[in-house]
């Protein structure tokens, strides 16, 4: 339906409110044509401000915004041709679903016939044909969400902007809508920016993710890169669950964790206290006797504290010295013989572990 997708480029984009530290600082990013980029970060990290600047609802203090190479930084919101889906949907309460969708087409002064046809197609696209004449109040949360999506898509936007679009839906609906948004975006081949504070949403639907923190870009990469090779303790802690083990690094690069010596990862880090970050599902748990030595794996000993059965998996908490480490046991039951208080051996692959200096703030 839409014309050729276009790239969106943010060039040293900055936003300041008064004399406070910048809400968004020197942000440079490129969203490829037809790509879905996630803007991920905790509340107050500036991600919504970035989206509002892209949409033209907030003015950039400095920097440029380019669509397909054209500088649109000074263009008013109504001239940008972007589709925006709001967190609370912001549907016009005094208009029917169809009228909401037709609004943007009317603003473009299309013929009545075109407006009718395209509105109808957009309604069908989000499977709301029978509810066209309902007011937003008469629609469920998921249906309102789909009207908002159709309203943003029907204008064939050059960029689709989604601001926490799922945060007002309950958990089951959220998964369905996530799949639906992803499917529509792919089918239409539209360039999109997806703002969210929920890392699982970002991991699930985005081609690439930009993690923001305090208005600055912390890391940008594919979901797998962000998840498996976090650039900082902050990213590691924010994306997915992670264990943090305090360790000491010697001058030769070798590590020790509560008396367990680990061969060094590399010799480039400084000596001192460091944090080892390992994700729960990367840790293997064995009874000490059955543990098979494996040169590729790092190994520490601990004591099982408790186990929580979660249906498809079991989470076990193991004390390594004073530090609790959670281990995820996928699939079938872990050895039933293991009881709280039993000694266990934990191991993980060297490549599954990240080491950050203590002064890298979490």
């Amino acid at each position, binding site marked *: 339906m839409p014309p050729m997708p276009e790239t969106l480029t943010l060039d040293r984009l900055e936003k300041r409110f008064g004399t406070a530290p910048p809400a968004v600082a020197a942000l440079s990013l490129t969203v490829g044509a037809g790509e879905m980029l996630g803007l991920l970060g905790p509340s107050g990290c500036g991600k919504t401000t970035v989206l509002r600047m892209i949409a033209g609802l907030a003015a950039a203090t400095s920097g440029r915004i380019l669509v397909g190479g054209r500088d649109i930084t000074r263009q008013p919101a109504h001239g940008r*041709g972007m589709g925006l889906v709001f967190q609370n949907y*912001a549907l016009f309460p005094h208009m029917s679903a169809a009228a909401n969708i037709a*609004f943007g087409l009317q603003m473009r002064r299309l013929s009545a016939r075109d407006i009718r046809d395209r509105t109808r197609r957009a309604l069908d696209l989000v499977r709301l044909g029978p509810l066209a004449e309902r007011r937003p109040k008469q629609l469920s949360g998921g249906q309102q969400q789909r009207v908002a999506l159709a309203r943003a898509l029907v204008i064939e936007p050059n960029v689709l902007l989604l601001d926490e679009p799922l945060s007002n839906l309950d958990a089951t609906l959220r998964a369905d809508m996530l799949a639906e948004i992803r499917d529509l975006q792919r089918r239409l081949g539209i360039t999109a920016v997806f703002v969210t504070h929920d890392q699982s949403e970002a991991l699930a639907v985005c081609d690439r993710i930009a993690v923001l923190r305090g208005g600055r870009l912390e890391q940008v990469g594919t979901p797998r890169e962000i998840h498996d090779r976090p650039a900082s303790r902050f990213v590691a802690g924010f994306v997915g669950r992670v264990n943090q083990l305090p360790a000491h690094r010697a001058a030769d690069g070798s590590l020790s964790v509560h008396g367990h010596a680990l061969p060094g990862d590399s010799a480039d880090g400084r000596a001192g206290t460091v944090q080892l970050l390992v994700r729960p599902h990367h840790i293997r748990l064995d009874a000490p006797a059955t543990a098979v030595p494996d040169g590729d794996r790092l190994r520490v000993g601990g004591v099982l504290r408790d186990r929580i059965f979660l249906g498809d998996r079991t989470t076990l908490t193991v004390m390594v010295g004073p530090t609790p480490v959670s281990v995820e046991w996928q699939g079938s039951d872990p050895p039933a013989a293991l009881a709280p208080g039993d000694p266990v051996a934990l191991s993980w692959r060297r490549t599954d572990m990240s080491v950050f200096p203590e002064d890298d703030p979490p």
Partner: protein
Amino acid sequence: MPYPTTHWAGRLGFGLLVAVLAAYLLAPVILVFPMSLSADTALSWPPSGWSLRWYAALASDRGMVEALRNSLLLGAVVTAVCLLIAVPAAVALVRGRLAPLALLLTLPLLLPSIVLGLGLLIVFVRFGLVGSWPGLVAAHLLVTLPYALRVLETALRALPPGVEEAAASLGARPLAVTLRVTLPLAAPGIAAAAILVFLVSFDEVVITLFVAGPHLTTLPVALYHHVESRTDPLAAAVSALLVLVTLVSVLALERLVGLRRAVGGGGS
């Protein structure tokens, strides 16, 4: 919430007190209705008989009829002009950081009308505006504008968040946003402001007393002069009329936005 007293005597006492005070508050308003149906020539209670003679007298009193006509016309003109001025101003107050201006615009509500009336008289005399339509409209704008702004500001601030931005993102220019989204959604508030403005104008007496003239007066001012000189039930008939207009307006206000929101926490 139950009254926490466990003693029935206490409850009864409180209930009686409330009933007496409510009667005190409402008696003068309610009593004008039976009084207006009195057959007597003086105000006495109970009337010696009932009749519609004072309504007939009112209908044939050319001064009162003309004053009523003036009041209705003035109320309509003031309502229209006031909204034309207040709606854009309220939009500006809501969209911009204009707190000092907002204070200035509501200040007339805080000062005694008698002082405002004198000030207007002093200025109007120089320009021959006393007893003229433009003078009356200007004086009533002074009184009604703060009320209109307060109701409209509340209404505009209560708009669902984001809809105006959504319209802009869909390609609507500022004028289209205002006409297609902002104003339709603020319609109940605008209607409430219109009713309140009409009512305030229709009932205004102190300032009008200063700027009305012998040939152009309003119903409350005519009533004031009448009551000042005579005490007959004709005034009761006029009062009953004013009470009815107010009552209808109050009910309409309540339907539209809720009375408490319309009149706010105080101020006169």
